[in-house]
């Protein structure tokens, strides 16, 4: 599609950027004009935000809190180390690419250091804060309900991950404490933007690496040779949003899984196996052959393992390039794991 890389996270400096004045010098701090408006606009667009500031953490966060802005910042990095380290740390914690970062600071020195060490990061002078919302890289192609909730979803993840790290006992027991509910439904018109976003955003867990545009996905929805399914996941901490997508090609005697993908945030929840189990059940019910395409990348070995452990075997293929074709024997199909509730909305009648 040859498009520019959109910004997914904006990292703010504090002194003389977020506010006028220097905290460590006991200045009277006043928020920069319009900065709250800009922060809220970015937040609504699903652009995450954080802080890289040379200050004492406790003291600075107290000010941020007093200004009522604490909730907008994920993994704030406030210490005396370099901002390059801070941005790298934030990128790692959020698990998103450094090339999707922007950094706002009033000091040319700080911007230059970031530009030098992390040339992919977009550096913005604090004087240009007003222009941020209009920048094209700050305007995602689509605004979906998931993008509006993105920051809250990350915040629930922070809580979950903490609880998980502190949990002593088998993984399975931990999962059963989450009260997870997965909902599988045919993708409707309102899901297509998110579906496109998923194919573009989450290539690390895409079994074929195929990406589809909105228009292509829309065509699949209207095709009687295809089924496009979308899965969402919720638990007691909140929603993970729409996190999984399956494209099935449904010819008369053979079904082929063209696309199986899921957001990397749910990698540890067994969602891939559940989607595959569901498709196997349906294929068996409809008495069709079940095939799956797989294109190995350096990141999707887990998908291959998931397929193989779900009774898929490689078969000979005339497919061009690196496409591996797998066939399922539809023999033993396990029940859904008991740590998760599986709901279907309007799928049985359509498949």
């Amino acid at each position: 599609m040859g498009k520019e890389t959109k910004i997914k996270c904006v990292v703010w400096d504090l002194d003389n950027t977020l506010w006028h004045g220097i905290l460590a010098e006991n200045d009277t701090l006043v928020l920069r004009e319009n900065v709250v408006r800009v922060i809220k606009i970015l937040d609504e667009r699903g652009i995450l935000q954080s802080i890289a500031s040379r200050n004492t953490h406790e003291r600075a966060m107290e000010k941020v809190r007093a200004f009522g802005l604490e909730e907008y910042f994920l993994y704030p990095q406030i210490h005396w180390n370099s901002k390059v380290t801070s941005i790298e740390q934030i990128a790692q914690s959020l698990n998103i690419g450094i090339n999707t970062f922007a950094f706002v600071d009033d000091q040319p020195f700080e911007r230059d250091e970031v530009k030098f060490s992390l040339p992919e990061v977009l550096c913005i002078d604090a004087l240009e804060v007003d222009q941020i919302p209009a920048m094209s890289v700050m305007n995602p192609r689509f605004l979906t309900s998931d993008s509006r909730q993105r920051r809250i979803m990350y915040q629930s993840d922070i809580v979950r991950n903490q609880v998980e790290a502190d949990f002593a006992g088998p993984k399975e027991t931990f999962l059963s404490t989450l009260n997870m509910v997965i909902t599988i439904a045919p993708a409707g018109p309102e899901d297509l933007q998110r579906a496109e976003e998923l194919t573009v955003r989450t290539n690390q867990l895409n079994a074929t690496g195929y990406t589809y545009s909105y228009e292509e996905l829309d065509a699949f929805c209207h095709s009687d040779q295809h089924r496009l399914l979308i899965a969402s996941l919720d638990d007691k901490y909140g929603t993970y949003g729409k996190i999984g997508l399956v494209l099935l090609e449904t010819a008369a005697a053979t079904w082929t899984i063209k696309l199986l993908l899921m957001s990397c945030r749910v990698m540890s929840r067994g969602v891939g196996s559940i989607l595959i189990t569901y498709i196997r059940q349906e294929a068996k019910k409809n008495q069709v052959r079940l095939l799956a395409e797989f294109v190995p990348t350096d990141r999707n070995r887990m998908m291959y393992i998931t397929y193989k452990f779900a009774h898929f075997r490689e078969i000979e293929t005339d497919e061009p390039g690196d496409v591996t074709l797998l066939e399922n024997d539809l023999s033993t199909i396990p029940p859904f794991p008991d740590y998760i509730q599986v709901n279907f909305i309007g799928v049985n009648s359509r498949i």
Partner: protein
Amino acid sequence: MDTTNKIKSFLTKFVRDADVGDDEDLFATGLVTSLFAMHLVLFLEKEFQVKVDNKDLDFDNFRTINAIVSLIEKKRNSV
């Protein structure tokens, strides 16, 4: 610790009822999550210094503790 016990001790990190027999089907309960499968493969590669190839990723090689043990032995002997 021998191979069997190392695998068993790994299982206890994931499975609630990890006290399974050496020939009991590990996956009969629907336990096979993507995560478990991936962790199991990574654990075996690291712990026993073997490379699990795509052709080894056959369900039958992982169905029981005994099956896993014999896969590991086969891999070690072929080095």
